[in-house]
Each structure stands twice: as C-alpha cells, then as structure tokens.
C-alpha cells in the first residue's frame, strides 16, 4: 500500500495534539514528492481538504501543450485525501491508499494551477472513504473526479466504528 508521508513520525504515536492542516501542510510540502510538485495548502473544513498545484512547464503531459499532466493531479488528490482523513480524525493516524479512481473530465486550462479537493465522507475503524474533484478555478466545472478508499495501518484508530 502506498503509505502516506511521515506516518512513522514518533510525535504522533501516542496522544496527538489537535491536527492543524495548515501548519501540517507547511511541514509536509517542503521536500520529497510533494515538494517536487510544489503543492500547497489552499483551504480545509471539518472533513475536507483543498490543496493547490501550481502550473509548471516541466510538469506538462504533452510537450506541445501547456497543460498539467494527469500524474501530478493524481498525486494532488491522493495527498488531499490523506489530509482530509486526518482532518476528520483530528489526528495524524497512519493511513495508506488502497484503491483510487480518477476520471478525467476535461483537460486543465493552459498554464493553469489546479486545485484538488477531497472529502472524507465515511470513516470506520479500518477504512476511510473519500471522494473529490480537481478544478482549475471553477469547482462547478471540474477537470477530474475522484473516489478512493484508504486503510488505517498499524493498529485500529480510536474513532469510527
């Protein structure tokens, strides 16, 4: 399973302080794959998370078109989903992607940043169900639709049922 970054940090092993998605994002997006893509925090709510992926020349999917490749959009939605789950749990519990589906509704606009939004709509002891979209400015006209299932790893979470 594709485990999420930093799940093994010792600080979250026992009593986790209130999960703060915004400062978490600053911490997580400085390096590694997220940092390579240049992801950033956009907004969050009780059970949802929005991340932003700026447009960048070297992340295009076709050298003749100035449009973000689909791969980085998957990364964005996967990451937004992990963070939506932590936000809903109010804890940094280890989770791993089990299944992820992305439907590409239309190409992103040229030279456009993409917002990935994911919502954790159901949480059980061992599974978290997420759904979301990616859009390039208008959430009513998404670029992609996403559905996924994540598993908690390394012991049951304290919540859910």
């Amino acid at each position: 399973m594709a485990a999420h970054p930093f799940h093994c940090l010792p600080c979250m092993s026992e009593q986790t302080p209130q999960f703060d998605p915004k400062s978490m994002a600053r911490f997580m997006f400085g390096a590694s794959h997220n940092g390579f893509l240049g992801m950033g925090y956009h907004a969050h709510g009780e059970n949802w998370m929005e991340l932003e992926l700026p447009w960048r020349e070297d992340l295009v999917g076709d050298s003749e078109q100035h449009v973000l490749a689909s791969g980085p959009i998957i990364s964005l939605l996967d990451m937004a989903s992990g963070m939506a789950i932590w936000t809903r749990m109010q804890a940094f519990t280890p989770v791993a992607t089990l299944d992820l589906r992305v439907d590409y509704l239309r190409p992103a606009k040229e030279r456009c940043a993409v917002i990935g939004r994911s919502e954790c709509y159901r949480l059980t002891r061992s599974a978290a169900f997420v759904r979301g979209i990616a859009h390039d400015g208008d959430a009513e006209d998404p670029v992609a639709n996403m559905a996924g299932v994540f598993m908690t790893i390394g012991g049951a979470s304290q919540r859910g049922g």
Partner: protein
Amino acid sequence: MADSIDPSPLLTPYARSMGVEVQDDGAENGTAPILSVPFSDTVQGRPSHYHGGAISGLLETAGYAAIRTQLELDQRGNVRLKPINITMQFLAAAKSETLFAQARITKLGRRNANVEVECWQADRSRPRATAVMNVLMVAAGPE
C-alpha cells in the same frame, strides 16, 4: 541524465522530471516497454517509501508507453492519446529501491484502448500496485 540524447517519445516532460527511464523499449521482442524510476527524493512520500502519487505517475506513463508503442507498430502513430480514467490498487508499500512498470494491452480499438499495468521491485511476482486505464485515441491536428 544526459540531455544530449534524444528524449524518449515514450516519456512526457512530467515523467522525465520525476526521473522515469525506459528500461527496455520492447522493440527487440515486440513487447510493451518496461519503464523504471530510481528511488529519490522526487518520488518519496514518507521516509524511504514511494509516494502513492509517484507510483501512479509511473503506472500511467507505462500504460501510455504500451499504447504508443503498439500504435507505431500498427502504423497509427499519428493519433493523440487522451486519458479517460484510471483505477489504481495499492497492494504493498514500495520501498527505497528501483520501481519497474509494464502494461498489457487488453483492448486496442479504433477509438479507445484498455490497458492493465503492474509495477514491481526486486521480485516481479510480488506486484506493489496495479492499474486499469481507459484511453481515448483521437486524430492528431486541430480539434
């Protein structure tokens, strides 16, 4: 990585900047290309593990590479590939060693293709993740 050699047409700018390489283009025995990505910070999620998004990017790139290669063999190289969807299953954590991927074309029609992709590390019989993709093929040129 030298820029002096022609970049493979099988790799998008995104795939190249993530570090994806063509391990075997399959030309010799007419199989789908095997792609690989070495472990580096660029593909890392939690420490010493691949990020799910990087795995997905490799799977998807291998899917397109298989279709592109077969279309060239069929003298249908002049089409553009557009993603319809992808479904990924993550089977086991991918750790800090090279990750390989190869696709198998299930159907290559006139307008759309369906491919299955698998990625593995040292032991090919133990896949790390799989994907199923649907891809639309449209005539190149102005829409």
